[in-house]
């Protein structure tokens, strides 16, 4: 069996675009999270919704910042 070159999971040139989009989605979700925090009162707030928004936002922000680091040349 001949050696197979190992490539990155995503082509290098995609990282900047990917980071812009994932970060945009992440920031929109973060904004909605904080809007919800600020507008709902303590009685009417639902913990599940807060956690769900926070989790989805952090997934997008996490991957977005990773792609941003890679696009900047910090290959982690």
């Amino acid at each position, binding site marked *: 069996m001949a050696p197979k070159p190992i490539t990155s999971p995503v082509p290098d040139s995609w990282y900047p675009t990917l980071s812009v989009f994932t970060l945009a989605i992440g920031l929109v979700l973060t904004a909605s999270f904080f809007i919800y925090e600020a507008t709902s009162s*303590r009685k009417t707030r639902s913990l599940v919704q807060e956690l769900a928004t*926070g989790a989805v936002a952090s997934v997008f922000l996490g991957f977005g910042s990773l792609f941003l680091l890679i696009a900047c040349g910090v290959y982690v």
Partner: protein
Amino acid sequence: MKRDMMRSNLFPLLFAFAFLFSPVFSASDLILAKVDRRIDLTSQIVRIATSLKVENTGSDVVSEILLSFPENHAKHLAYLKAIVSEGKGKAKTSSGVGLPVKAVQPNDVPPALTIYSVSLPKGLGKEHSLTLDVLAVFTHILQPFPEKINQGDVQLLLFQESAHYLSPYAVKAQSLTLKLPDARIESYSKLENAKLQGSELKYGPYENIPPFSYLPIVIHYENNLPFAVAKELVREIEISHWGNVQITEHYDIIHAGAQSKGEFSRLDYQTRPYLRGASAFRRLVAKLPPRAHSVYYRDEIGNISTSSLWGDSKKTELEIEPRYPMFGGWKTTFTIGYGLPLQDFLFGLDGKRFLNISFGAPIYELVIDTLFVKVVLPEGSKDISVSAPFPVKEWQETKISHLDIVGRPVVVLEKNNVVPEHNEHFQVYYKFNSLSMLREPFMLISGFFFLFIACIVYSHADISISKSSASYLAKLQWDEVQATTQLIHGIISRCLTAHDKLEASLHDLSRTGDVQACKATRKSVDSSLKELSKELKQPLTFLQSCPQAAQILPKVEELVTKERELQEKLVVKHTTVVDGYEKKSSGREIENRIASYQQKITALRREVDDLMDFIDEI
């Protein structure tokens, strides 16, 4: 003093060899039928290419051939490679793979000689011959003479060799060619058979020379080529499975030629750099692999702007200029770094991954005294092993870098006296689970998630100190009032949706004339409205009982009454229209009948909407 030392180096050696002629070493039955030596003296690295035609005159099969070097050469030996080429003339084939070479010390050889033994792939039988090509590379063997020169002087070098091939075997015919740089030759040993043709100096041919024959020659010549020596070079190769192999090289370079003495005049150097700074070098060229990107060249102060880069599909060339011209004995330190595409250097084989990359430095004709190659593998790599084409010292470290928890495993390889011939590929094998790649994003995700959790905890936590103070209680009540108001808002908006449903059913009726469906909708809307008005009762009583709500209560009550009114009017309108349809009244008649209601409904609806907006803002 140094000069004396050099002389005293030369001559004891001669005496040592004089007594060697006594047959202390019982040479085997091998003889060297023909020896051709070519010595390349054009750079600071001395390369001696020797072609030996070995014949076995005895009856035993011989499986190893000895190569000998005098002590003053052996201690500078950096690289030794022996290749067997079989056949004769143009049909010669050579495998290109070096034969195993090891240092040996036979009992009957004086310690002033260093012997290397070359193992032949198959024994050399009686009356057989083979051709052995030996390449020996030496560093720091050229002695600058004089040792100290001024800025304007040229650099003169001294090289000592033997005109006869120093060998434990008898040599039938031999010749020696020295390739010198295109410059002045100060002097050379004028032996009988010496001949100077242009920049080539020839000794020989000599015939029937006994073993261990040593005929010293000395060549004194001009050489102004760069004597760039890296005292220490640390090459760090960092693999990222996200698509990059990052190489960082820390150089500590010295001009190892004749020492500069006296003062340095920048003016003289600038006006006539090739005359008043002939021995200095001002630039170095590095040949980087193709597709190298993000190249930088800096030192402790910062970026050094005097560099240029160009490339094609085969290579990338980087020309760097140190901050000052390098004269003899001057030092400089700098760092170059570049990224390489992952797929060119990292491969997968049988579940293992391996890095295949060149060992030495990319700078042309650079001698490295101590080379450290550090291969930084991604976090989570296991079963690490190294395969290098020559012996190296090897150990492991860990390095903490971006987004690491336990640190990345680092394989460190150390080698002394490295020449460009060592730029061969070596391999680092390791095992890596692709899921480990998700560690870094997972760390970032959990970081952000903790931030959100902190916000949630902060907004849920009750952090007031005095739980019984009036203001705290008032705040609690106000929260409750707010929540109740929101609840009422929600109920009313559901009522309004129900109203919309009624309107829609009327619209459908005018379109389809289906009275039954309209009635069914009416029934369901009626029941849901009843339900909603029941729901409204409890929060409304709470608001009425609460002193905090006094301010907003009139508005809420107004909203509730207006909504009731609107509801009644709508119901009446609905009944009227449905009745009209049942009695088969004309469209115009029905419209006339509901016209007055319609006006009021529109007005009420607007008022209710305004009130809703007002309450929403509380």
